[in-house]
């Protein structure tokens, strides 16, 4: 998509001032603490509230420009918005809520309603009235309603907050499929790191109404600067170099002349690129390679820096090829192994989460 905007909006006690060019196809995650302005930004983009200052352009068409005073009304923007509170129409059954947008001409791709209803497990609820739905059911209906409104741009405001892990996993798959199949641009507001890891192609971090970091999740994760939630994790992108069908494992090469990283499963075809997420807590260090353990990955690394500000768990950075990995170890290990920068070590990696 190409959604470019620069908006300023003021409430007493809160100022929002955001300028972004979102060129990326795919899913942009809006990430930030409570009250940082995520929902407000969505409201402004959707045109439910015109931004007090600024301009919004989507695919070249002007949605708002406070210079010229043009404001395109919300219903003409063809966005699908899932509100944080579901906002189902209380006088309509689930069924009718879902088909509410049917009469309107909209720019986006029509989906197969019955399929979606199955995927979101709404079939048994179709005749219920919203006030008889559970929190999670409301949220699923709201999502379905937005998806079925044939939007050209999807704005999701914490769409999974009220759902259990299973449903969340299912729906995240669904969202990703949709995005890929229909090239539907999505802006996805969330608090949850795992949702970012799972879905985000592009990440925007907000704080108090300002953008404090923006870009490829691979860059943003793992560096100390940004939000603490992101610091303790490194994302490595690599391609599937080899498949071990018998042991059901795949070798991921993260750069030439680097040993591959082995992950469980063979779901990803040869040469597809995948993103690995390594958590600092999941990496151990060893002075020499080990044998006779179930540890499949022993990576040659060089110790870069040691940071002891965190009293309990010293923070170590090691380089694997040109990837930086954060490692969190104990003081005792630090002294026992007499670790110092420049040292050559082996990184023992137990489990590796494959994000996508």
């Amino acid at each position, binding site marked *: 998509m190409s959604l470019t905007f620069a908006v300023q909006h003021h409430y007493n006690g809160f100022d929002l001032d955001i300028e972004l060019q979102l060129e990326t196809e795919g899913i942009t995650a809006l990430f930030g603490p409570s009250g940082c302005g995520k929902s407000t930004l969505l409201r402004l983009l959707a045109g439910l509230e015109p931004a007090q200052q600024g301009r919004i352009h989507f695919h070249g068409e002007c949605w708002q420009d406070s210079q010229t005073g043009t404001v395109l009304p*919300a219903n003409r923007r063809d966005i699908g918005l899932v509100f944080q509170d579901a906002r189902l129409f209380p006088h309509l059954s689930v069924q009718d809520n879902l088909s509410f947008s049917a009469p309107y001409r909209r720019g986006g791709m029509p989906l197969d309603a019955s399929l979606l209803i199955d995927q979101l497990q709404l079939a048994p609820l179709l005749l219920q009235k919203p*006030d008889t739905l559970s929190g999670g059911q409301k949220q699923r209906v709201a999502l379905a309603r937005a998806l079925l409104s044939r939007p050209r741009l999807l704005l999701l405001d914490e769409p999974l907050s009220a759902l259990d892990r299973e449903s969340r996993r299912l729906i995240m798959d669904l969202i990703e499929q949709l995005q890929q199949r229909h090239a539907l641009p999505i802006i996805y507001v969330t608090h949850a790191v795992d949702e970012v890891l799972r879905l985000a192609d592009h990440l925007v971090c907000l704080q108090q109404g300002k953008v404090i970091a923006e870009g490829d999740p691979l860059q943003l994760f793992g560096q100390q600067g940004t939000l603490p939630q992101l610091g303790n994790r490194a994302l490595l992108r690599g391609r599937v170099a080899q498949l071990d069908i018998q042991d059901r494992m795949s070798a991921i090469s993260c750069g030439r002349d680097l040993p591959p990283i082995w992950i469980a499963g063979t779901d990803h075809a040869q040469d597809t690129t995948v993103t690995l997420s390594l958590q600092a807590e999941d990496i151990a260090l060893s002075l020499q390679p080990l044998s006779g353990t179930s540890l499949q990955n022993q990576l040659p690394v060089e110790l870069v820096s040691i940071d002891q500000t965190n009293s309990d768990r010293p923070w170590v950075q090691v380089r694997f090829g040109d990837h930086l990995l954060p490692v969190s170890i104990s003081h005792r290990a630090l002294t026992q192994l007499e670790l110092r920068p420049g040292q050559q070590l082996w990184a023992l990696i137990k489990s590796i989460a494959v994000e996508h």
Partner: protein
Amino acid sequence: MLPTEQDLAALWLTLQLASLTTLILLLLGTPFAWWLAHTHRRWKVIPEALVALPLILPPTVLGFYLLLAFAPDGILGAPWHWLTGSGLAFTFTGLLIGSILYSLPFVVQPLQSGFEQLDQGLLQAARSLGASRLSCFRRIVIPLCRRSFLTAITLGFAHTVGEFGVVLMIGGNIPGSTQVLSIALYDHVETLEYARAHWLAGGLLLFSISLLLLLYSLNRRQQAEIIR
């Protein structure tokens, strides 16, 4: 005792007047009430108060002033005469205008309070799903304010049926053209024709209550649907 032809004419006239009045009031009152409900202008209290004024004056007196206004050189009569070449007083149009003015508050006020209680979030949701202002109103506001509309219609209609002071004054009680049921009934009472008065009143009540019952039952069905 059968209804006289006059009574039937009066009944017919009354129905026409009441339905037309209610209809026009809905058409005029709804946008007005909406505006009152949503504007943040300081001075909106003035139209708000003015709406209720017609109620303050005794009908006959209101009618009296309307009569003055309707006069060929009156503030209403003059332009009307200029437009149509005919007068307003003692015509059905005149009655209509009178009734509309007099029943205005019964329609505007319930609607306004309904609109003000409405959850704006739902309207936003509807807009974001592609509904224009108008279809938003049709598909969200009207059903959610159903009861307010019902109130407006009931009060407006019933009051127009029963009201006679204004009508008597500006209508001139002319059988067939401006003699509505309420006046006929009033006449019967004034001329001590009790039997016919009873008969007429009974009929009117019976008729109205069946009308109302119908209305409310319909509403109830709807509601039953809405609240599971």
